[in-house]
């Protein structure tokens, strides 16, 4: 650090302390204003970014980064190997894939019924692509059949909404019903009923999934739906979630019309875009609060200019240049900004902790409205960098006018009177 910069910072520190006082009350108010602005920005950005990330993680944990489905019917994995080879060669970010079968049906239990989605997953390969295991809130990820009275009962992991609605506990047995096609035409279905045993409960964080989602072994799902050896498609894991968005479009072009490719973002594209817009709008609105706080910094500095009129004059007499006087004020503003930012970060962190506590106790997030029943707050480095940079720029700009005024003071005027 240059010696003049060190000298300036030392002088500013003395001005802020006003000699031996701990801190001058005007400065405390100015710092508090900035701190509140930074904290408000930090909390709001943490909520919006956290919402975005929680939503993305839920989708990626359930569906992987990409989903590839053959149009017009169910595929056989053996027939799809060539396609999978093609996919790997087209996607440089490819990491892993797993087959899946999705069947719509009904759950019937305790004289209640409800529509469900039954997903058959391959226990050997699914862990590399989706993360159902980490979403299990009760029980375990074990899809091996259970033996009861000489009969094999497939295991299932059910959404927590289903568990709640049907009062199902680990180890209890429930019935699923699926329509089995017996020919062409709307009337050509017969219902097929199968018992499943609850092995685990999933908390996906999205009420629309938790209320409908049931996972079982791929083979069990194939047998139950009378589609042995058939799959709906593949779920793909890439190096990064962000790779999926361009990959989906590129892959669909490459695979042709027989395949439908969807990224994790596609089903909620509008929601993600809305979140992005909201983030910008919230940032601007909260920023206005910080700009108001910056006026406080400017007025504090104006006051300093007036109070230190004779001091600035004597500094000039001692050989201080106008530039140094100007920098003395801008440094003062920047120190206020930096102190406000530091306290703001601390306040913001405390605010985030309080938000999380309130969310846990009072359920701040209505799941039906926001699609998520809770949000994990996320303080992103980029958000923080933008907040701190913008704060310092605002504080710097707020200092310019008082600093210019301070530098323009005629030293003779300040020396004439005490």
């Amino acid at each position, binding site marked *: 650090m240059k010696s003049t910069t060190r000298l300036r910072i030392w002088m500013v520190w003395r*001005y802020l302390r006003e000699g*031996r006082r701990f801190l001058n009350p005007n400065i405390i108010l100015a710092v508090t204003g900035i701190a509140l602005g930074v904290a408000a920005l930090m909390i709001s950005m943490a909520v919006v970014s956290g919402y975005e990330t929680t939503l993305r993680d839920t989708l990626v944990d359930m569906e992987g980064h990409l989903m590839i489905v053959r149009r017009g019917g169910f595929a056989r994995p053996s027939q799809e190997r060539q396609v999978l080879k093609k996919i790997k060669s087209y996607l440089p970010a490819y990491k892993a894939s797993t087959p899946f079968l999705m069947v719509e049906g009904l759950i019937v239990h305790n004289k209640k019924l409800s529509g469900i989605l039954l997903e058959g997953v391959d226990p050997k390969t699914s862990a590399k692509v989706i993360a159902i295991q980490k979403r299990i809130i009760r029980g375990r990820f074990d899809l091996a059949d259970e033996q009861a009275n000489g009969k094999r009962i497939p295991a299932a992991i059910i959404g927590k909404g289903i568990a709640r609605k049907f009062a199902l506990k680990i180890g209890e047995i429930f019935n699923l019903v699926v329509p089995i096609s017996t020919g062409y035409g709307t009337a050509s279905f017969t219902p097929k009923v199968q018992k499943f045993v609850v092995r685990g409960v999933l908390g996906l964080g999205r009420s629309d999934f938790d209320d409908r989602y049931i996972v079982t072994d791929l083979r069990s799902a194939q047998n139950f739906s009378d589609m042995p050896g058939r799959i709906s498609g593949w779920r793909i894991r890439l190096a990064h979630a962000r790779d999926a968005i361009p990959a989906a479009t590129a892959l669909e072009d490459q695979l042709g019309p027989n395949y439908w490719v969807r990224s994790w973002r596609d089903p909620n594209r509008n929601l993600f875009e809305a979140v992005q817009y909201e983030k910008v709008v919230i940032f601007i609105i909260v920023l206005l609060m910080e700009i108001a706080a910056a006026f406080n910094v400017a007025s504090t500095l104006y006051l300093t200019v007036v109070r230190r009129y004779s001091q600035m004059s004597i500094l000039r007499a001692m050989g201080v240049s*106008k530039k140094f006087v100007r920098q003395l004020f801008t440094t003062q503003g920047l120190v206020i900004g930096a102190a406000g930012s530091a306290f703001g970060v601390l306040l913001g962190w405390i605010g985030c902790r309080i938000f999380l506590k309130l969310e846990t106790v009072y359920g701040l997030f209505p799941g039906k409205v926001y699609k998520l029943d809770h949000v994990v707050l996320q303080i992103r480095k980029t958000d923080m960098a933008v907040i701190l940079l913008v704060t310092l720029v605002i504080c710097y700009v707020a200092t310019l006018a008082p600093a210019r005024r301070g530098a323009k003071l005629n030293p003779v005027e300040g020396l004439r009177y005490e």
Partner: protein
Amino acid sequence: MSEPLLRLDKVSKIYERGDSKLEVLQQIDFDVYAGQAVCILGASGAGKSTLLHILGTLDRPTEGRVLFNGKDMAKEPDEHLARFRNQEIGFVFQFHHLLSEFSALENVMLPARFAGQSESKAREHALELLQLLGLEDRSDHFPSELSGGEQQRIAVARALVQRPKILLADEPTGNLDTQNSEQIQELFFQFRLKFGLTLVVVTHDVNFASRFPRRMVLKDGHWN
């Protein structure tokens, strides 16, 4: 005689406000030689302070030249004048103008720090002066904790820490009681001898003025 250290050459200072003009200094010529001690006397409003400010380059003349070792300082940019004041001129005013947020020692150190001196070097120089003034035990005190006489002595130390060639003082004893006034007067002449200072002092104090070998009286903007 050699070239004067400071010279005012037909210096005028005119303040304009709307249509009215106030000519504070009128075509003033003034030579100050190195080591001289000059006292400027005059009634209030005669232009003494303005003259001192122009000599110290705190103000620019409306007309005329301000020569330091033959160089016209009136034409120099602000940055150069700031450096010039820091290196060559010490100021003492009627009010001590000490910075209230800094201790006595720090106040004395400031001009040296502005000149880019390290903190230790500036501290050494400042302490040396405070010892000469008998104020070393007050070095950590803030201005509000010092008496009027001590404050003014600290202001003298601050003016001299850079070992300037010229000391310009505007009513340096105007705010002091007799005892403190005499102490300050004594200091001026002690330091003049010790450091080979050139003194230009504006005062109303007849006793103080009588100690100067050269006295000039300013009346209505010109020498009487």
